[in-house]
């Protein structure tokens, strides 16, 4: 049935998506069935240099996986100060798959950026059919938050007094 077994045929976009998603920590350990639907419902989008991918203060119900290119995270309210950069292989916005949240940052393409996007609407359709995947994905997100703070503690936070008082995100 699956044509990927046949020789010489280039991969379809869906098949390529599937291979990528299978490697992602966020989706690791998901059964094959929902993964296939995820790969099918993902969309590829291209952003030109300087193009805004999402805007601070606005609700954006998409998650992004960068396939190619560099994007910078800025805050327009702070006079466009740059915070960090995202590049190939990074996954952004997994929380948007679960609820409406206004973005705290703006993401702007630095070079031409190609990403795989998944909208919450579509994601929720998959969850309706495979409710069990929610637990696994939420676990992966929470682990990420935990690791994040762990790294922060290890690397920076003890240096400044004020920061120390505001730590503890992983305890929410």
């Amino acid at each position, binding site marked *: *049935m*699956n044509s990927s077994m046949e020789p010489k*045929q*280039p991969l379809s976009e869906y098949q390529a998506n599937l291979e990528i998603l299978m490697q992602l920590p966020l989706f690791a350990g998901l059964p094959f069935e929902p993964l296939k*639907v995820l790969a099918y419902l993902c969309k590829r989008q*291209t952003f030109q240099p300087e*193009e805004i991918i999402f805007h601070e203060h606005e609700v954006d119900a998409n998650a992004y996986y960068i396939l190619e290119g560099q994007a910078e995270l800025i805050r327009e309210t702070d006079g466009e100060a740059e915070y960090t950069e995202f590049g190939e292989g990074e996954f952004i916005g997994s929380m948007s798959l679960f609820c409406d949240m206004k973005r705290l940052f703006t993401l702007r393409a630095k070079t031409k950026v190609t990403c795989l996007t998944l909208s919450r*609407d*579509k994601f929720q*359709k998959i969850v309706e059919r495979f409710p069990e995947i929610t637990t696994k994905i939420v676990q992966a997100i929470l682990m990420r938050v935990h690791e994040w703070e762990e790294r922060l503690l290890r690397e920076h936070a003890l240096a400044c007094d004020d920061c120390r008082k505001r730590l503890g995100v992983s305890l929410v």
Partner: protein
Amino acid sequence: MITKRPLIYWVKSSSIKLQVILLVVIAVNIAARVFPLQMQRKIVNEAIGQKKLNLLFLYCGLYLAAVLIASALKFVINAIQTYLGQETLAKLRKELYAHILTLPLSFFRKASSGMVVSSLVTEVVSAGELVGQAIAVPVNNILTLLAFAGYMFYLNPLLAALSLGIYPIVILVVPRLQRHSNRANKMRVDVTRDLSGKIGETVSGIHEVQGNASYRIENRKYGEFVDRLFKIRIVWNMYKQGIKVLNNLFQSLGPVILFLVGGYLAINGRFDLGALVAFLSAYEKLYDPWKELMDFYQVYQDATTGYQRLMEYFDVEPEHALEPPPDREPYEFEGSIHIQDLSFTVAGGIQLLKQVNLDLKPGEQLALVGFSGSGKSTLAQCIAQLYSYTGGSVLIDGKEVSQLTKRDLAENMGIVAQSPYIFDGSFKENLCYSCEALLEGKAEKEGRLPTLDEMIEVIQQVGLFVDVLRFGLNAVLAANQEAELVTKIIRIRENFQTHFGEELADYVEFFDEKHYLDYSSVAANLTFGSPNRDEFTQERLAENPYFLQFLDEAQLKRPLISLGRELASQFLDILGDLPLDEVFFQESPISVDELDDYKELIERIGHSRIHELTPDDQRLLLRLALRFTPGIHKMATLPEMLRNLILEGRFLFMAKIQQDHPGALAFYRMSDYIHSQTILDNILFGKTTSDHPNAQDRINQSIIHLLIEEDLLEGIVEIGMDFKVGTKGDRLSGGQRQKLAIARVFLKKPPILIMDEATSALDNASQKRIQTLLETKWKGKSTLISVVHRLDTIKGYDKVAVMKAGKILEMGSYQELLAKKGVLYELVHGAKAAA
């Protein structure tokens, strides 16, 4: 008021002329019905008895004539009855509807829409039909009864008295049974109403039902109503049938007495045979009018019960008059608002507003802020007369709001509700809704409707211009559109490619003869033109023998069938047994309703080779392949070789069809308009490759630029105004709906504006735009009362009132209140800390 009228009112208000005609026809009809009896007697006694053939013919002829006349008149009677009944029904429906529209909002909080629907659609029917019968049926049947009974007395008084003696018993018994039937009927009306309400509720809440998979709960609740209705209907029908059966029984007892007594008299020679036959006929003829009378009695009882129930339900007074008295025009207010000791108490003694005091000069702007439940929306709605306040006063230009008519308010006030309602119809109809409401029914309406310029100005102000432009660009022009427009569009197409072709190459795939088009279907790649004949439309190509033959020649048929098979199996492999949701089909060549067919097909053909498939199966797979659009349908790829074959096929097809069917297709050419495609596709002369808003923006901007050059911008926007918004505006986004609701009120230019969280569904930029507009264009012109949910928009208001638990805690300008460090200060800084 309509609900106070008894059923008899409708009989009286029906056409008197028709009722009189009806009575006359009935009288003639009765005569025509009694006459054959007399003929019957004469036929038996004079013609047959005395063996006179000429008399037999004469009497039979007369008999026939009487029967024909009676039948014809019966039809006339029914026709008049139907007309009277339906006329009343229509009148009843219209007047009740008009009454329901004026009922206070509080009524609709307890009434469900399903209930109102069933009242207007089904419950009024029996009352209306009764009115048609109300005079004709009783008069007709009672007179007929009397006529036949009289004839019987004329033949033999004793026999007549004996056989008619049964009827008084019936008259005693039936009403008792009918009372039970009425009680059951009353319950039926109530339960049917609950049932309609329940259905209405599930339909409007279907997303919650499906979201919670609460099918069982809803089925159980609905089932309970149906079961109750089932029981009641059985009881009700049993009583009705019981009455009928009883009636029949008495009726059949009659002949027994007749034969017994009549036979005895005839044997003794005191009664001739002809008279006995006539008597029996007369008795039988009594049956019909009697039965009709009984039926009428039941219909009358059921209809009266239903009608009373119906009118009781809607027996609520409208709180305000609709129109001012004839001797005064609607007020024209300046817009000053003075509120004193306003309070609003709802059932149960709950005070939603307490001692509110407020003063606004014409043109002043007030923001109402506070937590939800603080009464800010309630206050706005009291000013708008949507709630009737229970104490204190609200004065507009010195006039008490509760005393104003709806018309006075509509002329002077514009209300944007929290969740505005958009009606089915075009964008323009919705935009002009408020303005048209004021003009409906008035003469010289045309001149006073907003002009196109005014409409465009207002949609620009609220930020809908680009949206409407887009609707216009996505419209397909009718074939007979003016040539000038078409020429301009072609010119724009050329300029678009020269000026923006390179820049937008990432977003548009231009129609190019020499290249394969990834964003057009395989069929479009082959035909490369728009069809002029039905059999060449893309959906029908798989059935077109000429096209199939061409595919064979071009060596395309098998590879395409194989592609179709791969598409179907991939799609089924991905989706498996997922529920049928539109989302899963957006990027698939298979549509929702075809899924089952293809599922069955793929299972059935298993690993069979293509040449083993039936022509029908081949056609199904071919159809999918012809729809395949590599840029959209990502579950499969188009092999390089097939791609080249198709491209070759395009040129073969062009050559072939120009020879065999010239004119069947119009090939895509830079100089020709494509009538089967949207204006946008015509300008692009290609397809967009991304539906991301950014991409659309860039395309839009370049197109707007070119449209302005050709002076076509407004023309396209005008086409866009005819966009059909769908039921409840469901083809618009939440933001578009809210902007449209604001625009329709702005277009009316009222001296008082009430906005109840009117921008809650808008993004930041749009919210800011509306706020700026209020502060620049409307300040000083319209008094504004705005219920605000976001504190960052209130700086520009003249006054801010902070509400809590139905009271205004503090009021003043934004700066004053912040300086005071009171509640607003806390709210603002609390909000900041939380953000």
